[in-house]
């Protein structure tokens, strides 16, 4: 019996391939967007993990020279002899590849390569016999070396024995840093006594890169979820309409003796089979999307945070399995309502397609209550949400509530407009448009979510760009930055630069802890560079005056939020107490930062000298100055950083970020346009009986087709108008709630009306394109088809 039932059910799709295509394509697109974004995220995260594992980055304390220069190998020997368990690391670049040399005998576990290749020889590696480990892509840049392929080695990095690395990098007897192993002997001579030039950097408890780039990934994940939500609406619409059209068949099957439970089981199995097929197509499509996006994402992350991400994609089980799970779960979610209705459907109701409008009328009240409840919850969460869960709950409640409210709002608008209609054609048009709403509502909800996601994410990314550029202006106000190698060079720099530039601003810092938060404390010289460029989130009226007078301190937003410190609170540094005078935005910095005046800093930390100098001058003179500086003082050009170059580079990075978000925006909008197309095509077959009377009463088929097109554009326009405030609310939630919860800083929100207008036009274009084919089909419906409507009336 099951086979016969399945044959009858499957024959529906055979006879209605468009519906089948709509169902499979909707689900496949939803899965593709989700798995594509997840693939990019998984790949990037795997790269950071590889980097962190390879370099032991962030996991262990490190010893480095205070001036950042390599230390002598003898220092390492002295420390080992004194009982310190430390392991040397040498780093440098060769052919653009980061060469990392470790001592395999003393390095902590997990810092070595993953020896998966048959050619790898643990013994040779341990004996320092010239083996180099790198990923296949990186290996291509090192043709002269014998490279063992190790896929888990970080992208752009080659790992080898320290001896070989020293030879390759020309750093004979030099070490860049020492990893301090956990579990040191109880008594040792203090490091400061053995090697006072070394500074110990505390372990971060994880990868810095990973934490910094989390914000980018969180945004991508949020976008992926929104795209999937759009897809689910499409799937829901496709399944709902398919069930609606098969309702008479279902009644017939039951009347002919198919038990209800068997029928539901077979239908659920049928859908799961489709979900599996569509899910696999979607995962494959997602792979293509990810492969296309990854080079841009990799470039963005490299530029923004210095994180190396492999430009190639690996098929990771975690994301293709999650893609399939999402496809099956999404279908289950979308089908559960339809199957429930089926199980409750009385056998003896009239065996005709239920009027969608009537059904919607019955459920409109419940939908309205649910929408009102969700929107109320979202408003409450706007004021109370704290943490990531609260932030995402706010996003969910807001988006689902708005989507549920959309058909009701549109219905109300159409009802008001129809009252103003003068001609009979206009009255019919408005009434007919209202009648079409239930059938189109899921597609319109998908469009609403797609547009809101576009507005929200574009606003967030653009606000991030504006803020970051302002931040760069604030932090990179000096036209040139110079990092001397030592105090002699620093003195030479000051002597040389003072008569030639507008101002020399020394930059010095100490790593301290405030309120249990790791914090960089800066000593700043009183100069208009700070007063003119730095913008405060909160400040006392004389924040700079009191700070430069040595009375107060200013702190970054991260420290303020994490340590719960506000204006007027007091902070003690080296027994000196300062009141907080201001809080400033410090975007992208994972740790706390504080600033006091130069003289006070020198009193508190007399041994710390400036490591960096900002020079204010005419930007046009920077090139000539650097050349002369190098010739006169021996400070190399590589020790200087031109502010204009950094800004140009940063802006280039943002352009690439935009490439990624624009690609995702277009994809999401295309998916929503597809939803409208599929809904209109599915409805078109049901439209003939509704339009035949209008045709019979004197409207031409061309007129009918034009009105169909107008209707789609009109509904898309109304949806776009509603999507704008929703998208802005979404952006606000992402910037002010989710970002704060995740990363500890709030991004100011800017508005971009031109972008929204362009997006609205795209949405109308998508709707018009989607409606064109169904409208054309209706306009060309043969009169015989229209007449059949009347001939079937008995």
């Amino acid at each position, binding site marked *: *019996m099951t086979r*016969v039932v399945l*044959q009858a059910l499957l*024959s529906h799709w055979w006879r209605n391939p468009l519906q089948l295509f709509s169902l499979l394509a909707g689900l496949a697109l939803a899965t593709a967007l989700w798995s594509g974004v997840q693939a990019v995220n998984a790949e990037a995260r795997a790269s950071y993990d590889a980097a962190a594992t390879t370099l032991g980055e962030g996991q262990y304390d490190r010893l480095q020279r205070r001036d950042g220069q390599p230390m002598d190998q003898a220092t390492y020997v002295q420390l080992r002899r004194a009982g310190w368990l430390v392991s040397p690391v040498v780093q440098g670049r060769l052919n653009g590849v980061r060469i990392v040399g470790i001592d395999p005998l003393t390095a902590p576990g997990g810092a070595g390569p993953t020896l998966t290749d048959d050619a790898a020889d643990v013994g040779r590696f341990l004996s320092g016999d010239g083996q180099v480990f790198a990923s296949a892509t990186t290996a291509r840049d090192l043709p002269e070396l014998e490279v063992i392929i190790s896929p888990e080695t970080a992208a752009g990095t080659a790992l080898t024995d320290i001896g070989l690395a020293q030879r390759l990098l020309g750093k004979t007897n030099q070490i860049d840093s020492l990893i301090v192993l956990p579990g040191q002997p109880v008594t040792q001579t203090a490091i400061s006594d053995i090697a006072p030039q070394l500074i110990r950097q505390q372990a971060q408890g994880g990868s810095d890169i990973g934490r910094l780039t989390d914000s980018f990934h969180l945004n991508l994940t949020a976008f992926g979820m929104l795209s999937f939500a759009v897809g689910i609406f499409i799937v829901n619409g496709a399944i709902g309409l398919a069930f609606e059209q098969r309702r008479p068949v279902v009644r017939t099957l039951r*009347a002919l*003796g198919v*038990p209800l*439970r068997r029928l539901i089981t077979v239908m659920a199995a049928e859908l799961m089979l489709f979900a599996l097929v569509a899910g696999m197509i979607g995962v494959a499509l997602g792979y293509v999307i990810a492969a296309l996006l990854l080079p841009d994402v990799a470039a963005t992350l490299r530029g923004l945070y210095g994180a190396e991400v492999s430009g190639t994609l690996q098929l990771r089980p975690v994301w293709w399995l999650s893609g399939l799970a999402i496809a099956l779960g999404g279908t289950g979610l979308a089908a559960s309502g339809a199957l429930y209705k089926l199980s409750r459907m009385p056998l003896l109701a009239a*065996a005709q397609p239920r009027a969608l409008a009537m059904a919607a009328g019955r459920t409109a009240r419940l939908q309205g209550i649910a929408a009102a409840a969700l929107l109320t919850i979202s408003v409450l969460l706007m004021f109370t949400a704290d943490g990531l869960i609260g932030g995402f709950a706010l996003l969910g409640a807001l988006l689902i509530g708005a989507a549920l409210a959309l058909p009701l709002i549109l219905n109300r608008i159409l009802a008001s407009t129809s009252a103003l209609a003068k001609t009979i054609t206009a009255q019919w048009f408005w009434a007919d448009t209202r009648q079409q709403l239930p059938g189109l509502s899921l597609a319109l909800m998908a469009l609403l979510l797609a547009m809101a996601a576009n507005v929200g994410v574009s606003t967030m990314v653009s606000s991030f760009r504006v803020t970051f550029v302002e931040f760069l202006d604030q932090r990179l106000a000096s036209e040139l930055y110079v990092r001397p190698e030592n105090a002699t060079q620093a003195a030479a720099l000051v002597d040389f630069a003072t008569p030639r530039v507008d101002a020399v601003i020394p930059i010095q810092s100490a790593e301290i802890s405030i309120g249990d938060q790791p914090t960089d404390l800066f000593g700043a010289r009183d100069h208009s560079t700070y007063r003119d460029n730095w913008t405060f989130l909160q400040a006392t009226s004389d924040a700079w005056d009191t700070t430069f007078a040595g009375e107060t301190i200013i702190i970054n937003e991260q420290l303020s939020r994490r340590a719960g410190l506000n204006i007027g609170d007091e902070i003690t540094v080296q027994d000196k107490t300062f009141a907080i005078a201001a809080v400033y935005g410090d975007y992208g910095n994972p740790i706390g930062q504080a600033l006091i005046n130069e003289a006070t800093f020198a009193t508190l930390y007399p041994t710390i000298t400036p490591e960096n100098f900002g020079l204010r001058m005419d930007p046009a003179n920077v090139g000539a100055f650097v050349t002369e500086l190098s010739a006169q003082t021996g400070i190399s050009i590589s020790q200087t950083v031109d502010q204009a170059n950094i800004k140009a580079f940063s802006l280039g990075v943002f352009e690439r970020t935009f490439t990624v978000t624009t690609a995702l925006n277009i994809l999401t909008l295309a998916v929503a346009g597809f939803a409208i197309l599929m809904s209109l095509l599915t409805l078109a077959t049901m439209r003939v009986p509704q339009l035949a009377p209008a045709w019979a009463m004197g409207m031409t088929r061309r007129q009918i087709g034009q009105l169909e097109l107008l209707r789609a554009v009109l509904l898309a326009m109304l949806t776009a108008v509603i999507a704008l405030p929703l998208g802005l609310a979404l952006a606000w939630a992402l910037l002010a709630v989710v970002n704060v919860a995740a990363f500890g800083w709030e991004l100011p929100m800017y508005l971009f009306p031109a972008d929204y207008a362009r997006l609205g036009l795209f949405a109308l274009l998508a709707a018009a394109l989607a409606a064109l084919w169904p409208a054309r089909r209706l306009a060309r419906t043969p009169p015989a088809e229209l007449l059949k409507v009347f001939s079937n009336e*008995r």
Partner: protein
Amino acid sequence: MLLTVENIHKTYQTADGPFAVLRGIGMHLSAGETLALTGESGSGKSTLLHLIGGLDTPDQGHIHLQDQDIAALDDNGRAGLRRGTVGVVFQQFNLIPSLRVVDNIAFQARLADQYDPTWAATLADRMGLTEQLNKYPEQLSGGQQQRVAIARTLAPKPKLVLADEPTGNLDEATAAIVMDLMMELVAETNAGLLMVTHSENLAGRLSRRLHLRAGQVA
């Protein structure tokens, strides 16, 4: 006795309150016997037919079909009854639009695991559908569709055929042809036939008539 109906009651809830459609109906039918159920609209004819066909359940009373109490069956039991023992011909044909005529005719018999290709071919031939077997229902006229529906109902050789206004959607000439064929085939299979009709002419062709008025036998 093929069918015995005892003291059947059925009440529906309406917007105006409960409405008793059937009020203590009793009747019987033997194998090979044909019975017309007549009465005004709302007299309970179709409701009685649906109860006997296991499409609905009575509030009170018993319906014995070959010594089995239909009223006591659960959903699965009633579905099993509809698959093989009882065949229902609907006014609206209720064919499966995505299956060809040949598959529609075989459908119920295959569901009941009682498919006999020779008998199905005979039915198609007798119904004049041989040329239409590979067509889809939408390509047939109303009369042809009803003939397919009757062939489908008779394919598993049910003991009892229930017909609810089977010619209600057909013109007079077509209705006469369809009725002739159905009567012939029912007689050949020795099934009982219970037919709801408003047509005096059709009712007169059956061996007995039961007239209902306000939910009771008149």
